[in-house]
Protein backbone atom coordinates (compact mmCIF):
# COMPACT_ATOMS: atom_id res chain seq x y z
CA UNK A 1 0.00 0.00 0.00
CA UNK A 2 2.71 2.41 1.07
CA UNK A 3 4.75 1.24 -1.88
CA UNK A 4 2.07 2.20 -4.33
CA UNK A 5 1.60 5.55 -2.65
CA UNK A 6 5.29 6.31 -2.90
CA UNK A 7 5.03 6.61 -6.66
CA UNK A 8 2.20 8.99 -7.43
CA UNK A 9 3.64 9.52 -10.90
CA UNK A 10 3.25 5.83 -11.58
CA UNK A 11 -0.35 5.86 -10.40
CA UNK A 12 -1.19 8.86 -12.51
CA UNK A 13 0.36 7.39 -15.57
CA UNK A 14 -1.80 4.32 -15.05
CA UNK A 15 -4.87 6.47 -14.82
CA UNK A 16 -3.84 8.11 -18.06
CA UNK A 17 -4.06 4.74 -19.82
CA UNK A 18 -7.51 4.26 -18.36
CA UNK A 19 -8.71 7.67 -19.55
CA UNK A 20 -7.25 7.09 -22.99
CA UNK A 21 -8.86 3.69 -23.42
CA UNK A 22 -12.26 4.76 -22.16
CA UNK A 23 -12.33 7.80 -24.38
CA UNK A 24 -11.44 5.80 -27.48
CA UNK A 25 -14.00 3.12 -26.55
CA UNK A 26 -16.61 5.81 -26.16
CA UNK A 27 -15.94 7.09 -29.67
CA UNK A 28 -16.00 3.60 -31.14
CA UNK A 29 -19.25 2.54 -29.50
CA UNK A 30 -20.98 5.87 -29.94
CA UNK A 31 -20.44 5.56 -33.69
CA UNK A 32 -21.25 1.84 -33.74
CA UNK A 33 -24.55 2.29 -31.92
CA UNK A 34 -25.27 5.27 -34.14
CA UNK A 35 -24.69 3.32 -37.31
CA UNK A 36 -26.92 0.39 -36.30
CA UNK A 37 -29.66 2.79 -35.26
CA UNK A 38 -30.63 0.49 -32.40
CA UNK A 39 -31.11 1.58 -28.83
CA UNK A 40 -29.79 -1.69 -27.47
CA UNK A 41 -27.67 -4.44 -28.96
CA UNK A 42 -27.96 -7.95 -27.54
CA UNK A 43 -29.60 -6.43 -24.49
CA UNK A 44 -26.89 -3.84 -23.85
CA UNK A 45 -27.36 -0.11 -24.38
CA UNK A 46 -24.46 2.24 -25.18
CA UNK A 47 -24.40 3.21 -21.53
CA UNK A 48 -24.29 -0.45 -20.44
CA UNK A 49 -21.49 -1.27 -22.87
CA UNK A 50 -19.26 1.56 -21.69
CA UNK A 51 -19.76 0.86 -17.99
CA UNK A 52 -19.15 -2.80 -18.77
CA UNK A 53 -15.85 -2.00 -20.51
CA UNK A 54 -14.84 0.32 -17.68
CA UNK A 55 -15.22 -2.44 -15.09
CA UNK A 56 -13.52 -5.01 -17.31
CA UNK A 57 -10.52 -2.72 -17.87
CA UNK A 58 -10.35 -1.92 -14.16
CA UNK A 59 -10.26 -5.60 -13.25
CA UNK A 60 -7.52 -6.28 -15.81
CA UNK A 61 -5.39 -3.21 -15.15
CA UNK A 62 -5.51 -3.55 -11.37
CA UNK A 63 -5.09 -7.26 -10.88
CA UNK A 64 -2.10 -8.53 -8.91
CA UNK A 65 0.87 -9.36 -11.12
CA UNK A 66 2.22 -12.48 -9.52
CA UNK A 67 3.02 -14.83 -12.37
CA UNK A 68 6.58 -13.56 -12.78
CA UNK A 69 7.15 -13.56 -9.05
CA UNK A 70 6.03 -17.14 -8.57
CA UNK A 71 7.83 -18.62 -11.55
CA UNK A 72 11.08 -16.84 -10.64
CA UNK A 73 10.99 -18.13 -7.07
CA UNK A 74 10.23 -21.62 -8.30
CA UNK A 75 13.00 -21.47 -10.87
CA UNK A 76 15.76 -20.19 -8.62
CA UNK A 77 14.69 -22.55 -5.85
CA UNK A 78 14.02 -19.86 -3.26
CA UNK A 79 10.58 -21.38 -2.85
CA UNK A 80 12.32 -24.12 -0.86
CA UNK A 81 13.36 -21.69 1.84
CA UNK A 82 9.74 -20.82 2.40
CA UNK A 83 8.88 -24.41 3.25
CA UNK A 84 9.68 -24.00 6.92
CA UNK A 85 7.86 -20.71 7.25
CA UNK A 86 4.56 -20.88 9.10
CA UNK A 87 2.48 -19.72 6.18
CA UNK A 88 1.45 -20.87 2.76
CA UNK A 89 3.69 -19.63 -0.03
CA UNK A 90 0.84 -18.92 -2.45
CA UNK A 91 -1.42 -17.18 0.04
CA UNK A 92 1.55 -15.15 1.19
CA UNK A 93 2.18 -13.93 -2.34
CA UNK A 94 -1.47 -13.03 -2.71
CA UNK A 95 -1.71 -11.12 0.55
CA UNK A 96 1.43 -9.08 -0.10
CA UNK A 97 0.06 -7.77 -3.35
CA UNK A 98 -3.49 -7.04 -2.23
CA UNK A 99 -2.76 -3.53 -0.94
CA UNK A 100 -1.27 -2.35 -4.19
CA UNK A 101 -4.06 -4.05 -6.12
CA UNK A 102 -6.79 -2.23 -4.20
CA UNK A 103 -4.98 1.06 -4.58
CA UNK A 104 -4.78 0.62 -8.33
CA UNK A 105 -8.42 -0.38 -8.45
CA UNK A 106 -9.51 2.81 -6.70
CA UNK A 107 -7.48 4.99 -9.06
CA UNK A 108 -8.73 3.19 -12.15
CA UNK A 109 -12.34 3.29 -10.97
CA UNK A 110 -12.16 6.99 -10.21
CA UNK A 111 -10.59 8.05 -13.49
CA UNK A 112 -12.32 5.53 -15.74
CA UNK A 113 -15.62 6.16 -13.99
CA UNK A 114 -15.27 9.91 -14.36
CA UNK A 115 -14.75 9.68 -18.12
CA UNK A 116 -17.62 7.24 -18.65
CA UNK A 117 -19.92 9.25 -16.41
CA UNK A 118 -19.22 12.39 -18.40
CA UNK A 119 -19.76 10.51 -21.65
CA UNK A 120 -22.93 8.53 -21.00
CA UNK A 121 -24.18 9.45 -17.55
CA UNK A 122 -24.22 7.64 -14.18
CA UNK A 123 -23.89 3.86 -13.82
CA UNK A 124 -27.14 2.15 -14.82
CA UNK A 125 -28.00 -0.03 -11.84
CA UNK A 126 -27.08 1.48 -8.52
CA UNK A 127 -26.90 0.47 -5.71
CA UNK A 128 -27.50 -3.12 -6.82
CA UNK A 129 -24.42 -2.76 -9.00
CA UNK A 130 -22.30 -2.75 -5.85
CA UNK A 131 -22.41 -6.51 -6.07
CA UNK A 132 -19.52 -5.87 -8.42
CA UNK A 133 -17.06 -5.72 -5.52
CA UNK A 134 -17.37 -9.31 -4.31
CA UNK A 135 -17.46 -10.35 -7.97
CA UNK A 136 -14.20 -8.49 -8.66
CA UNK A 137 -12.58 -10.16 -5.67
CA UNK A 138 -13.69 -13.59 -6.91
CA UNK A 139 -12.48 -12.71 -10.39
CA UNK A 140 -9.01 -11.92 -9.05
CA UNK A 141 -8.97 -15.18 -7.13
CA UNK A 142 -9.89 -17.23 -10.21
CA UNK A 143 -7.25 -15.34 -12.17
CA UNK A 144 -4.72 -15.89 -9.40
CA UNK A 145 -5.31 -19.66 -9.48
CA UNK A 146 -4.59 -19.79 -13.18
CA UNK A 147 -1.59 -17.49 -13.05
CA UNK A 148 -0.16 -19.46 -10.14
CA UNK A 149 -0.71 -22.74 -11.99
CA UNK A 150 1.24 -21.35 -14.92
CA UNK A 151 3.93 -20.06 -12.57
CA UNK A 152 4.26 -23.46 -10.91
CA UNK A 153 4.79 -24.92 -14.34
CA UNK A 154 8.31 -23.60 -13.86
CA UNK A 155 8.88 -26.77 -11.80
CA UNK A 156 8.70 -28.63 -15.09
CA UNK A 157 9.94 -26.25 -17.80
CA UNK A 158 12.48 -23.44 -17.67
CA UNK A 159 10.64 -20.50 -19.14
CA UNK A 160 6.91 -20.10 -18.64
CA UNK A 161 6.56 -16.63 -20.09
CA UNK A 162 5.12 -17.97 -23.34
CA UNK A 163 2.23 -19.49 -21.40
CA UNK A 164 1.73 -16.28 -19.44
CA UNK A 165 1.48 -14.44 -22.71
CA UNK A 166 -1.03 -16.84 -24.22
CA UNK A 167 -3.13 -16.76 -21.07
CA UNK A 168 -3.31 -12.98 -20.99
CA UNK A 169 -4.45 -12.93 -24.63
CA UNK A 170 -7.12 -15.55 -23.98
CA UNK A 171 -8.46 -13.39 -21.17
CA UNK A 172 -8.41 -10.37 -23.46
CA UNK A 173 -10.59 -12.08 -26.06
CA UNK A 174 -12.52 -14.93 -24.43
CA UNK A 175 -12.73 -13.12 -21.11
CA UNK A 176 -14.61 -10.33 -22.83
CA UNK A 177 -12.23 -7.47 -22.06
CA UNK A 178 -12.26 -6.02 -25.55
CA UNK A 179 -15.83 -6.96 -26.41
CA UNK A 180 -18.73 -8.13 -24.22
CA UNK A 181 -19.41 -11.84 -24.76
CA UNK A 182 -23.00 -10.87 -25.57
CA UNK A 183 -21.81 -9.56 -28.94
CA UNK A 184 -20.14 -12.87 -29.82
CA UNK A 185 -21.71 -15.36 -32.21
CA UNK A 186 -23.82 -17.85 -30.21
CA UNK A 187 -21.46 -20.80 -30.41
CA UNK A 188 -18.46 -18.74 -29.31
CA UNK A 189 -20.38 -17.17 -26.44
CA UNK A 190 -21.49 -20.59 -25.21
CA UNK A 191 -17.94 -21.89 -25.49
CA UNK A 192 -16.49 -18.87 -23.67
CA UNK A 193 -19.01 -19.14 -20.85
CA UNK A 194 -17.98 -22.72 -20.20
CA UNK A 195 -14.29 -21.78 -19.96
CA UNK A 196 -12.72 -20.17 -16.88
CA UNK A 197 -11.53 -16.99 -18.67
CA UNK A 198 -14.98 -15.39 -18.68
CA UNK A 199 -15.06 -15.55 -14.88
CA UNK A 200 -11.95 -13.38 -14.52
CA UNK A 201 -13.45 -10.33 -16.21
CA UNK A 202 -16.78 -10.80 -17.91
CA UNK A 203 -18.56 -11.90 -14.74
CA UNK A 204 -18.02 -8.77 -12.62
CA UNK A 205 -18.39 -6.37 -15.55
CA UNK A 206 -21.64 -7.93 -16.73
CA UNK A 207 -23.08 -8.08 -13.25
CA UNK A 208 -22.38 -4.42 -12.75
CA UNK A 209 -24.62 -3.36 -15.60
CA UNK A 210 -27.34 -5.95 -14.97
CA UNK A 211 -27.34 -7.06 -11.34
CA UNK A 212 -30.26 -9.48 -11.53
CA UNK A 213 -30.70 -12.45 -9.26
CA UNK A 214 -30.42 -15.02 -12.07
CA UNK A 215 -27.36 -13.24 -13.44
CA UNK A 216 -25.70 -13.29 -10.03
CA UNK A 217 -26.56 -16.95 -9.54
CA UNK A 218 -25.08 -17.91 -12.90
CA UNK A 219 -21.98 -15.71 -12.89
CA UNK A 220 -21.00 -15.76 -9.22
CA UNK A 221 -21.91 -19.43 -9.18
CA UNK A 222 -19.60 -19.96 -12.12
CA UNK A 223 -16.86 -18.05 -10.35
CA UNK A 224 -17.23 -20.14 -7.21
CA UNK A 225 -17.27 -23.36 -9.19
CA UNK A 226 -14.11 -22.48 -11.10
CA UNK A 227 -12.46 -21.24 -7.94
CA UNK A 228 -13.11 -24.61 -6.31
CA UNK A 229 -11.86 -26.61 -9.30
CA UNK A 230 -8.78 -24.49 -9.92
CA UNK A 231 -8.04 -24.10 -6.22
CA UNK A 232 -7.98 -27.85 -5.69
CA UNK A 233 -5.88 -28.36 -8.78
CA UNK A 234 -3.49 -25.67 -7.61
CA UNK A 235 -3.12 -27.17 -4.14
CA UNK A 236 -2.47 -30.57 -5.70
CA UNK A 237 0.14 -29.28 -8.15
CA UNK A 238 1.81 -27.16 -5.49
CA UNK A 239 2.17 -30.06 -3.06
CA UNK A 240 3.44 -32.37 -5.76
CA UNK A 241 5.93 -29.74 -6.89
CA UNK A 242 7.21 -29.20 -3.37
CA UNK A 243 7.64 -32.93 -2.81
CA UNK A 244 9.55 -33.09 -6.04
CA UNK A 245 11.72 -30.25 -4.79
CA UNK A 246 12.42 -31.88 -1.41
CA UNK A 247 13.32 -35.20 -3.00
CA UNK A 248 15.70 -33.51 -5.38
CA UNK A 249 17.16 -31.44 -2.59
CA UNK A 250 16.22 -28.09 -4.14
Amino acid sequence: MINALAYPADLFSRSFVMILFMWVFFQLWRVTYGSTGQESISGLTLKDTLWYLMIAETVILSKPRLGREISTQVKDGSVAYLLNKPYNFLLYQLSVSIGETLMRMVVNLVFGGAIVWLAVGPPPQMPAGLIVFPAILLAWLVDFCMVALIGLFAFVIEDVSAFEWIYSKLVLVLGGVLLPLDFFPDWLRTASLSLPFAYTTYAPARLFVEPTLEGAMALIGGQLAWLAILGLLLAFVFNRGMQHLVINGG
Partner: protein
Amino acid sequence: MHIKSELRFLSALWRANFLSLMEYRASFIMAVFGMMLNNAAYFIFWFIFFDRFEKVQGWGLSDMFVLFGSVASAFGLSVFLFGNVHFLADIIAGGRLDYYLSLPRPVLLHSLASRSSASGLGDFIYGFISFLLAGQFTVDAMGRFLLGMLLGAVVFVSFQVIAQSLAFWVGNASMIAAQASNAIVTFALYPLTLFDGTAKLILFTVIPAAFIGAVPAEFVRAFSLDRLILMVAGAITMLSLAVFMFYRGLRRYESGSAIQVQV
Protein backbone atom coordinates in the same frame (compact mmCIF):
# COMPACT_ATOMS: atom_id res chain seq x y z
CA MET B 1 29.62 9.75 -50.90
CA HIS B 2 28.48 11.27 -47.64
CA ILE B 3 25.08 9.56 -47.71
CA LYS B 4 26.68 6.33 -48.81
CA SER B 5 29.07 6.40 -45.92
CA GLU B 6 26.22 6.99 -43.46
CA LEU B 7 24.29 4.09 -44.96
CA ARG B 8 27.30 1.81 -44.65
CA PHE B 9 27.60 2.90 -41.05
CA LEU B 10 23.89 2.29 -40.38
CA SER B 11 24.01 -1.17 -41.86
CA ALA B 12 27.05 -2.01 -39.74
CA LEU B 13 25.14 -0.78 -36.70
CA TRP B 14 22.09 -2.87 -37.57
CA ARG B 15 24.33 -5.86 -38.07
CA ALA B 16 25.76 -5.38 -34.57
CA ASN B 17 22.23 -5.08 -33.17
CA PHE B 18 21.20 -8.25 -34.87
CA LEU B 19 24.25 -10.10 -33.59
CA SER B 20 23.42 -8.84 -30.10
CA LEU B 21 19.91 -10.23 -30.38
CA MET B 22 21.27 -13.52 -31.67
CA GLU B 23 23.29 -13.93 -28.49
CA TYR B 24 19.94 -14.75 -26.89
CA ARG B 25 18.29 -16.69 -29.63
CA ALA B 26 15.49 -18.23 -27.58
CA SER B 27 14.37 -14.87 -26.16
CA PHE B 28 14.53 -13.39 -29.62
CA ILE B 29 12.22 -16.01 -31.11
CA MET B 30 9.93 -15.77 -28.09
CA ALA B 31 9.65 -12.02 -28.47
CA VAL B 32 8.93 -12.19 -32.19
CA PHE B 33 6.25 -14.83 -31.93
CA GLY B 34 4.87 -13.49 -28.68
CA MET B 35 4.25 -10.14 -30.32
CA MET B 36 2.55 -11.78 -33.29
CA LEU B 37 0.32 -13.67 -30.88
CA ASN B 38 -0.42 -10.47 -29.05
CA ASN B 39 -1.57 -8.87 -32.28
CA ALA B 40 -3.62 -11.91 -33.18
CA ALA B 41 -5.80 -11.18 -30.13
CA TYR B 42 -6.82 -7.87 -31.68
CA PHE B 43 -7.33 -9.60 -34.98
CA ILE B 44 -9.90 -11.87 -33.32
CA PHE B 45 -11.51 -8.88 -31.65
CA TRP B 46 -12.11 -7.12 -34.94
CA PHE B 47 -13.19 -10.34 -36.57
CA ILE B 48 -15.94 -10.83 -34.02
CA PHE B 49 -16.80 -7.15 -34.04
CA PHE B 50 -17.34 -6.95 -37.78
CA ASP B 51 -19.04 -10.32 -37.87
CA ARG B 52 -21.64 -8.64 -35.74
CA PHE B 53 -21.72 -5.10 -37.10
CA GLU B 54 -20.44 -5.52 -40.68
CA LYS B 55 -19.74 -1.87 -41.44
CA VAL B 56 -19.23 1.12 -39.20
CA GLN B 57 -19.32 4.44 -41.05
CA GLY B 58 -17.98 2.89 -44.22
CA TRP B 59 -15.27 0.88 -42.46
CA GLY B 60 -15.33 -2.89 -42.83
CA LEU B 61 -13.21 -5.79 -41.73
CA SER B 62 -10.73 -5.59 -44.61
CA ASP B 63 -10.19 -1.86 -44.05
CA MET B 64 -9.53 -2.63 -40.42
CA PHE B 65 -6.93 -5.23 -41.35
CA VAL B 66 -5.16 -2.77 -43.63
CA LEU B 67 -5.24 -0.14 -40.89
CA PHE B 68 -3.93 -2.54 -38.28
CA GLY B 69 -1.30 -3.79 -40.72
CA SER B 70 -0.05 -0.27 -41.48
CA VAL B 71 0.23 0.65 -37.81
CA ALA B 72 1.81 -2.64 -36.70
CA SER B 73 4.41 -2.61 -39.47
CA ALA B 74 5.25 1.07 -39.04
CA PHE B 75 5.59 0.68 -35.29
CA GLY B 76 7.49 -2.60 -35.64
CA LEU B 77 9.92 -1.18 -38.16
CA SER B 78 10.52 1.83 -35.93
CA VAL B 79 11.42 -0.14 -32.84
CA PHE B 80 13.31 -2.83 -34.73
CA LEU B 81 15.62 -0.45 -36.59
CA PHE B 82 15.57 2.45 -34.14
CA GLY B 83 15.07 0.58 -30.88
CA ASN B 84 16.30 3.42 -28.69
CA VAL B 85 13.30 5.48 -29.76
CA HIS B 86 11.66 4.47 -26.47
CA PHE B 87 14.79 5.00 -24.37
CA LEU B 88 16.13 8.31 -25.59
CA ALA B 89 14.88 10.21 -22.53
CA ASP B 90 16.71 7.81 -20.22
CA ILE B 91 19.85 8.05 -22.35
CA ILE B 92 19.76 11.83 -22.18
CA ALA B 93 19.00 12.03 -18.48
CA GLY B 94 21.58 9.37 -17.64
CA GLY B 95 24.34 11.13 -19.54
CA ARG B 96 24.72 8.25 -21.94
CA LEU B 97 24.87 10.51 -25.00
CA ASP B 98 28.59 10.92 -24.22
CA TYR B 99 29.35 7.78 -26.13
CA TYR B 100 27.61 8.97 -29.28
CA LEU B 101 29.08 12.43 -28.94
CA SER B 102 32.61 11.07 -28.82
CA LEU B 103 32.21 9.30 -32.17
CA PRO B 104 32.16 11.03 -35.54
CA ARG B 105 28.58 10.22 -36.54
CA PRO B 106 25.23 12.03 -36.34
CA VAL B 107 24.25 11.74 -32.68
CA LEU B 108 20.50 11.31 -33.14
CA LEU B 109 20.75 8.68 -35.85
CA HIS B 110 23.52 6.84 -34.06
CA SER B 111 21.77 6.72 -30.70
CA LEU B 112 18.38 5.72 -32.12
CA ALA B 113 19.80 2.88 -34.19
CA SER B 114 21.99 1.48 -31.41
CA ARG B 115 19.35 -0.84 -30.07
CA SER B 116 16.93 -3.21 -31.65
CA SER B 117 13.74 -4.51 -30.15
CA ALA B 118 13.00 -8.09 -31.18
CA SER B 119 9.28 -7.77 -30.62
CA GLY B 120 9.37 -5.03 -33.26
CA LEU B 121 10.21 -7.65 -35.85
CA GLY B 122 7.11 -9.57 -34.75
CA ASP B 123 4.97 -6.45 -35.20
CA PHE B 124 6.55 -5.75 -38.56
CA ILE B 125 5.88 -9.25 -39.93
CA TYR B 126 2.41 -9.33 -38.44
CA GLY B 127 1.58 -6.09 -40.22
CA PHE B 128 2.19 -7.75 -43.57
CA ILE B 129 0.10 -10.77 -42.62
CA SER B 130 -2.71 -8.46 -41.60
CA PHE B 131 -2.40 -6.57 -44.89
CA LEU B 132 -2.51 -9.80 -46.92
CA LEU B 133 -5.55 -11.00 -44.97
CA ALA B 134 -7.36 -7.93 -46.21
CA GLY B 135 -7.16 -9.52 -49.63
CA GLN B 136 -5.55 -6.76 -51.69
CA PHE B 137 -3.18 -8.79 -53.76
CA THR B 138 -2.17 -6.22 -56.42
CA VAL B 139 1.36 -4.91 -56.74
CA ASP B 140 -0.03 -1.38 -56.66
CA ALA B 141 -1.74 -1.90 -53.34
CA MET B 142 1.38 -3.49 -51.91
CA GLY B 143 3.45 -0.55 -53.08
CA ARG B 144 1.03 1.91 -51.50
CA PHE B 145 1.05 -0.11 -48.29
CA LEU B 146 4.85 -0.05 -48.16
CA LEU B 147 5.08 3.66 -48.87
CA GLY B 148 2.40 4.57 -46.34
CA MET B 149 3.98 2.35 -43.73
CA LEU B 150 7.43 3.87 -44.23
CA LEU B 151 6.09 7.42 -43.96
CA GLY B 152 4.10 6.35 -40.90
CA ALA B 153 7.27 5.01 -39.32
CA VAL B 154 8.98 8.36 -39.93
CA VAL B 155 6.11 10.15 -38.19
CA PHE B 156 6.12 7.73 -35.27
CA VAL B 157 9.88 7.96 -34.70
CA SER B 158 9.82 11.75 -35.04
CA PHE B 159 6.92 12.07 -32.61
CA GLN B 160 8.72 9.94 -30.06
CA VAL B 161 11.98 11.85 -30.52
CA ILE B 162 10.13 15.08 -29.79
CA ALA B 163 8.53 13.65 -26.65
CA GLN B 164 11.73 11.98 -25.45
CA SER B 165 13.81 15.11 -26.13
CA LEU B 166 11.82 16.87 -23.41
CA ALA B 167 14.39 15.19 -21.16
CA PHE B 168 16.85 17.93 -22.12
CA TRP B 169 14.58 20.45 -20.42
CA VAL B 170 12.68 18.62 -17.70
CA GLY B 171 15.09 15.84 -16.77
CA ASN B 172 12.91 12.81 -16.32
CA ALA B 173 10.68 12.64 -19.39
CA SER B 174 10.48 8.89 -19.92
CA MET B 175 7.08 8.52 -18.28
CA ILE B 176 5.49 11.30 -20.29
CA ALA B 177 7.11 10.01 -23.49
CA ALA B 178 5.86 6.49 -22.83
CA GLN B 179 2.34 7.82 -22.44
CA ALA B 180 2.71 9.81 -25.64
CA SER B 181 3.68 6.58 -27.39
CA ASN B 182 0.69 4.77 -25.87
CA ALA B 183 -1.61 7.53 -26.97
CA ILE B 184 -0.44 7.76 -30.56
CA VAL B 185 -0.58 4.00 -31.07
CA THR B 186 -4.00 3.66 -29.47
CA PHE B 187 -5.48 6.45 -31.58
CA ALA B 188 -3.80 5.19 -34.75
CA LEU B 189 -5.50 1.81 -34.38
CA TYR B 190 -9.02 3.22 -34.89
CA PRO B 191 -10.66 4.66 -38.01
CA LEU B 192 -10.55 8.41 -38.25
CA THR B 193 -14.30 8.54 -38.89
CA LEU B 194 -14.92 7.74 -35.22
CA PHE B 195 -13.69 11.14 -34.18
CA ASP B 196 -15.32 14.52 -34.59
CA GLY B 197 -13.86 17.94 -35.51
CA THR B 198 -11.63 18.89 -32.60
CA ALA B 199 -10.45 15.36 -31.97
CA LYS B 200 -9.62 15.00 -35.65
CA LEU B 201 -7.59 18.19 -35.58
CA ILE B 202 -5.63 16.85 -32.62
CA LEU B 203 -4.92 13.62 -34.49
CA PHE B 204 -3.32 15.57 -37.30
CA THR B 205 -1.29 17.88 -35.06
CA VAL B 206 -0.56 17.34 -31.37
CA ILE B 207 -0.84 13.55 -31.53
CA PRO B 208 -0.39 12.91 -35.25
CA ALA B 209 -1.86 9.41 -35.15
CA ALA B 210 -3.74 9.93 -38.40
CA PHE B 211 -0.45 9.86 -40.34
CA ILE B 212 0.38 6.43 -38.98
CA GLY B 213 -2.98 4.71 -39.23
CA ALA B 214 -6.00 6.14 -40.97
CA VAL B 215 -4.38 8.14 -43.78
CA PRO B 216 -2.03 5.36 -44.96
CA ALA B 217 -4.92 2.86 -44.73
CA GLU B 218 -7.13 5.06 -46.89
CA PHE B 219 -4.21 5.49 -49.27
CA VAL B 220 -3.95 1.71 -49.67
CA ARG B 221 -7.66 1.49 -50.47
CA ALA B 222 -7.31 3.89 -53.40
CA PHE B 223 -4.52 6.05 -54.75
CA SER B 224 -5.01 9.74 -54.15
CA LEU B 225 -2.48 12.45 -54.85
CA ASP B 226 -3.89 14.61 -52.06
CA ARG B 227 -3.32 11.90 -49.50
CA LEU B 228 0.17 11.22 -50.79
CA ILE B 229 1.08 14.90 -50.51
CA LEU B 230 -0.50 15.02 -47.07
CA MET B 231 1.53 12.03 -45.86
CA VAL B 232 4.82 13.27 -47.29
CA ALA B 233 4.25 16.75 -45.90
CA GLY B 234 3.35 15.28 -42.51
CA ALA B 235 6.47 13.12 -42.43
CA ILE B 236 8.78 15.95 -43.47
CA THR B 237 7.25 18.35 -40.96
CA MET B 238 7.49 15.90 -38.09
CA LEU B 239 11.03 14.88 -38.98
CA SER B 240 12.22 18.48 -39.20
CA LEU B 241 10.58 19.28 -35.88
CA ALA B 242 12.18 16.25 -34.25
CA VAL B 243 15.66 17.03 -35.55
CA PHE B 244 15.30 20.69 -34.58
CA MET B 245 14.06 19.83 -31.10
CA PHE B 246 16.76 17.22 -30.44
CA TYR B 247 19.68 19.37 -31.54
CA ARG B 248 18.25 22.39 -29.74
CA GLY B 249 18.16 20.31 -26.60
CA LEU B 250 21.60 18.85 -27.21
CA ARG B 251 23.11 22.28 -26.53
CA ARG B 252 21.72 21.99 -23.02
CA TYR B 253 23.07 18.48 -22.58
CA GLU B 254 24.80 18.10 -19.24
CA SER B 255 26.32 14.65 -19.43
CA GLY B 256 26.40 12.80 -16.12
CA SER B 257 28.45 10.22 -14.38
CA ALA B 258 26.38 7.13 -13.75
CA ILE B 259 28.13 3.88 -14.53
CA GLN B 260 26.56 2.01 -17.41
CA VAL B 261 27.17 -0.49 -20.17
CA GLN B 262 26.67 -0.30 -23.91
CA VAL B 263 24.06 -3.00 -24.46
